[in-house]
């Protein structure tokens, strides 16, 4: 099963455009397992505490959640466009701006998330002795909610940092900010977006018609 697309490898590492992409995809495979453990814990909770999950989900802010999802989807489209622009000679001037836009949307997402967390903190929805809801399992729901969105947030911060650095590097025509690095960073960003795509229904839309 020789990989058809990979040109017969020169023994010099790093010259083949696909190595970076393949490396990032293998890393994303490990990240799927990394978040996967949390989704297994979530599914355990949802099957064993349906009432707690529904009650907990009703107390999340669905408006902010939906807006955040839209922001992240847009940022994903923006970075895809940036990669496309980088490959086209005449559109290359847009790349740096699109990368900056993506990073800005990422920051907006984190700001909204911060507001949401603050609201929940004020409503005593943070697991602890003073936890507001008394349905069995609601505390686990919010515990997992904070762990999952927290871990996702950390990945967002890494993504924003990478995109910011690449945007500056690209605007200064740096050698390390070429199509290959952009595509790898874009893949990572799309992955973080896909994780949120699954977090959104699982955390916000468990039982809205209650």
């Amino acid at each position, binding site marked *: 099963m020789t990989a058809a697309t990979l040109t017969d490898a020169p023994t010099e590492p790093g010259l083949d455009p696909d190595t970076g992409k393949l490396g990032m995809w*293998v890393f994303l495979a490990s990240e799927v397992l990394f978040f996967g453990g949390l989704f297994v814990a979530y599914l355990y909770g949802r099957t064993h505490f349906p009432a707690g999950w529904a009650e907990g989900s009703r107390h999340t802010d669905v408006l902010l959640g939906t807006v955040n999802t839209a922001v992240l989807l847009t940022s994903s489209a923006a970075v895809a466009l940036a990669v496309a622009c980088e490959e*086209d000679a005449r559109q290359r001037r847009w790349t740096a701006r699109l990368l900056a836009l993506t990073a800005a949307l990422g920051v907006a997402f984190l700001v909204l998330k911060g507001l949401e967390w603050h609201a929940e903190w004020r409503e005593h929805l943070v697991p602890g002795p003073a936890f507001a809801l008394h349905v069995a399992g609601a505390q686990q729901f919010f515990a997992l909610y904070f762990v999952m969105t927290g871990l996702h947030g950390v990945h967002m911060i890494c993504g924003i940092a990478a995109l910011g650095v690449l945007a500056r590097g690209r605007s200064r025509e740096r050698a390390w900010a070429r199509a290959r690095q952009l595509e790898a960073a874009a893949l990572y960003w799309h992955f973080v977006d896909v994780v949120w795509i699954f977090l959104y229904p699982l955390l916000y*839309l468990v039982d809205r018609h209650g």
Partner: protein
Amino acid sequence: MAEARAATSGFARERRTIASAWVALLLLMLASLGSAYLRLGPGNMVAGLVIAGIKGAIVAWLFMRLRQAGALIRLAAVAGLGAWCLLLALSGVDYATRTLTPTPVQRPQQLLPAQAASEPR
């Protein structure tokens, strides 16, 4: 000239796919939101996950360019999901068939005096 037009049409086509994918994603998000307000019982979770699956597929297929990626890259994309499904499936065998007789566990603290019975933590 032809090469330039081909380049622009290439980029134009790419831009169009990205734009349409973006719109589709937003619509699917709204659909997912709407489906949550319908009383579907367990169907809510299924609908939520199916729509999320479609959105994830769009992002992977178009934005992450799996469409024009080689077999190896697609294999790497699917490998993580496959391993996760193994974890879910086999631990699911245990959870689905485990006859559980639960008992509430009391944290072994000192016996509190009868009148100040604190509500369960």
